[in-house]
């Protein structure tokens, strides 16, 4: 009965008919179910269900986690700009950003729980933490930040028409709202840290010269590069999703100046990141790697990961979109803007890929071989499950919650 359904929707916005919506989510549900089956196999039968091995101890999932969390960074960074830098134009996307952040982080954590060999021991990390380990830092920050995102998600949830009928919820939501800036601050702090420690994860591998980087204090340079790159990718991803959603739902969601603004923010940060990344790479090629007995060019002697991947990561997916996003004229044209944002996201993915997969593929023992790895269907299924989960949560949120406050005014 559509009327009941519409009662649950935000006022003054039009949504597709229940039938259409059902048709839209059904395939995603199927995908989710399939993925959960694969993940279940890994949990019950063990990680022999994957194609990982003693040399490729990390695989698709870690790549997924790193990428997804980088893309989810939009949540904290937009919040940071909105609440702390008072960039009020961003109010238009903050809700969407929070939901995306929540999806990305919860998805990543779920994948991580499947990835470990002994999920029942997950709490050991909190009970017997090794404070020297980047992974400890990651675990702590991510779990804390996920909680923050959850709390940030609640008020959006409570704004739902049906929910508002419960008086106590109204009060609760009002109180939470006063809390938002604080949460944004905390979230930002946490995010800076775990985005960084995710980078540190590989930068500290002193015995893996391809990944190892010198740094400041206990943090390798990748620590800071990850923060910056995530901050750059976050807005780009929000830009991308917002555009995508308005295309799919065939509705204007935000005022025309919002997306270019996101693009500009992303562009500035990206340029800064690329410059630092370039410097870091040069330092690594000329000092860090040789000092440990590895001539950097060796790493690129192994097919298929030639030097081209370096070019793609830094120039094609880095410098190029940065320049596009920084040109006002190009920013104003949606095609340029969106494709640039796309390139940014691809760049981040490439960077995370290189750090996880290529690092493990390269031999360290002089008499060892370059190795390849293809994820098993169970791994891929779990990967897709996270994607499907994301789409579903977002679709539902978009249908029943106010993700884009400006939509109402724009639609009438």
């Amino acid at each position: 009965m559509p009327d009941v359904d519409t009662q649950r929707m935000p006022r003054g916005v039009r949504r597709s008919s229940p039938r259409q919506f059902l048709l839209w989510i059904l395939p995603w549900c199927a995908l989710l179910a399939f993925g959960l089956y694969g993940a279940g196999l890994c949990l019950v039968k063990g990680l022999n269900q994957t194609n990982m091995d003693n040399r490729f101890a990390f695989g698709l999932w870690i790549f997924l986690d790193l990428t997804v969390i980088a893309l989810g960074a939009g949540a904290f960074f937009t919040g940071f700009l909105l609440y702390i830098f008072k960039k009020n134009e961003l109010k238009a996307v903050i809700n969407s950003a929070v939901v995306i952040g929540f999806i990305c982080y919860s998805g990543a954590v779920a994948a991580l729980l499947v990835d470990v060999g002994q999920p029942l021991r997950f709490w050991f990390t909190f009970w017997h933490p090794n404070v020297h380990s980047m992974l400890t830092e990651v675990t702590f920050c991510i779990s804390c930040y996920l909680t923050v995102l959850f709390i940030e998600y609640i008020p959006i949830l409570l704004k739902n028409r049906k929910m508002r009928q419960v008086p106590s919820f109204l009060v609760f939501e009002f109180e939470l709202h006063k809390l938002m800036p604080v949460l944004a601050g905390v979230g930002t702090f946490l995010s800076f840290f775990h985005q960084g420690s995710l980078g540190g994860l590989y930068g500290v591998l002193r015995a893996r010269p391809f990944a190892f980087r010198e740094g400041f204090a206990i943090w390798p340079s990748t620590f800071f590069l990850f923060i910056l790159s995530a901050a750059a990718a976050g807005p780009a991803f929000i830009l991308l999703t917002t555009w995508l959603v308005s295309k799919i739902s065939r509705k204007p969601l935000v005022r025309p100046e919002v997306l270019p603004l996101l693009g500009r923010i992303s562009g500035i940060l990206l340029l800064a990141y690329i410059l630092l990344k370039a410097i870091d790479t040069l330092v690594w090629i000329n000092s860090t790697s040789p000092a440990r007995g590895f001539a950097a060019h060796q790493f690129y002697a192994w097919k298929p990961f030639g030097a081209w991947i370096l070019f793609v990561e830094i120039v094609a997916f880095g410098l190029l979109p940065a320049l596009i996003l920084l040109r006002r004229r190009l920013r104003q044209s949606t095609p340029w803007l969106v494709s640039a944002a796309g390139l940014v996201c691809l760049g981040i993915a490439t960077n995370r890929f290189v750090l996880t997969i290529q690092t493990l593929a390269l031999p360290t023992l002089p008499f060892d071989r370059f190795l390849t790895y293809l994820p098993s269907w169970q791994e891929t299924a779990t990967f897709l499950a996270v994607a499907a989960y994301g789409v579903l949560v977002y679709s539902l949120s978009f249908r029943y919650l106010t993700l884009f406050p400006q939509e109402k005014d724009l639609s009438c």
Partner: protein
Amino acid sequence: MGFTRRDLLRFSGGSAAGLLLTPVPWTLLHDTAVLTENWPGVPRPRHGEIATRYTTCTLCAAGCGVRARCVEGQPVSLAGVAGHPGSRGALCPAGLAGHHLTFCRGRATEPLAKGKPVGIDHALASVSAAIAECGSGESVAILDARPGRAASLVYRRFLAGLPKAVHCAPPDAQPYGGFGIDLENTRAILSFGARVLDGWLSPGRVLANRSCFQLIQAEAAYSRTASLADVWVPLPPGGEETFAAAVARALQGDDADAQAAHVARILLHNQPAIAIGGGAAAARINQILGSVGRPGGFLPRRDFMPATNIAALPDHSIRVLLIEEPAANDSLPWDVVARKLAQNPMVVALTPWLDGCAQHADYVIPAPVYLESLDEAPTPEGCTVAGFSLSPALLPTPPKLMAPAEFILRLAHDPSAYSEILKQRVAAIKKEARGTIFTYADAKSTRVADFASADDLWKAMLGGAAWFDDPIRSSRTESLPRAGWSNPPAVPSPEYPLVLISADSPPPHGSPLMSKLYRESGLRRSAIAAAVHPETGRAHGLADGGRAIVKIPGDSFTAQVIFDAAVMPGVIQSAGRASSPASIRRA
């Protein structure tokens, strides 16, 4: 008003909150994590009194001394016996895991007739009947896995009572006849495909002397030994005779090709030198080198019990064949045996395994494996003096199993048990009062004469000891037996353009842990691997690591291709396969 849904929510909300203040969630969290330490699938080792026991390895002819660490009597690990004159305190990988053999799959657990279980007496009766039916010109044969044991004497005694009978041995059972190799003084070894550094004699003895001799490995395969030898002479498959002749010419100063001359020079400059493994070829070279009967060469010893090489028997001559299958390390070339069988023969397999000669046998008499029953180790292969040691059982003998010697004794209606035969052997040693006894536990050597009685000697040997004869001062210089058989040259043809050769055959039976070497590390190539030179491979459209079908006359098998630039072009190197012409194509 009744109990509404909202009430239920409130109540459960309250209990949820309350539960957090109880030990329940935290205890569950903790205990489920602890559960992962000992959940089903994690076995619990047995604990208890730890004891050291001693025995002698019978897996191959090397007869290495073994120290076993036992928990509650169950051996949990094996090690060499320091100072053991034959094995120098070393064991090979198979020996180190010998106590696992009893758990291997494919064991014969009860007497079988044509695959059906039968009583042992029924088996005895029908075998006796078959022997009685033997016509003229048809013989009864016992294939003795390791001639020269007390068990062999049992066989000979039984066969002596029959009109036409032959005590035979596998083709390569007695490569050096009544001679031992004075390895300690050898300066150069020309080996025709012998696995000198990979299971020849006893690993301890060979490796202890490795730095003292030059090793020239002449074989087609890039084997473990070839890859480590001082010189590798890659012969064309089956080219042993030709090369040996060339070396012989060079040794006598006649002209020969550069390689033969080079080898000859090494042999001449590193005297005393010996040649091994090439059958007749090696024998000729040894004659020229005069390496028979001199220190550093082949020295005669007292206890030689010649057994007929089964390959030398006339074809279709055996009516009843009793095969004693080797325990683990070397398998029997069945095609050689099959040729010797007469019309409707009876084959009796005295074996622990179902997948070996048992497949071809009418009757299978299940035999115990190493450590399952009291056994004996005769003179170690290549030992320059006679030797003997007992291999006391460390494991209970499974029911229905019967040592081959026992079976023959029963067949001969001899009431005495195998153990008594062994006891008689020890008594004989005591009687002759020659040589010394090396006791494993204290690594001491005692003259046999110093033992009070045969009983003392028996007890000492049951506790782990080895007897070694005194060297003999005879100047016998008759040439070596031409035992050992080099593969007939495998000639490529248009249909079979390549040659399949064997390298480092894996033992047919071994501990499950052998997977560490063959499957989990790639240190050794498994039987399904086929190594070819990259050029040969590409010429036949193969890809490195891909699968391929290897065809040989009358057979074909799929293998995993390995490109190895060290392999001879035109050759397929696959573990555990007889040399033959072959073709290969992508699967």
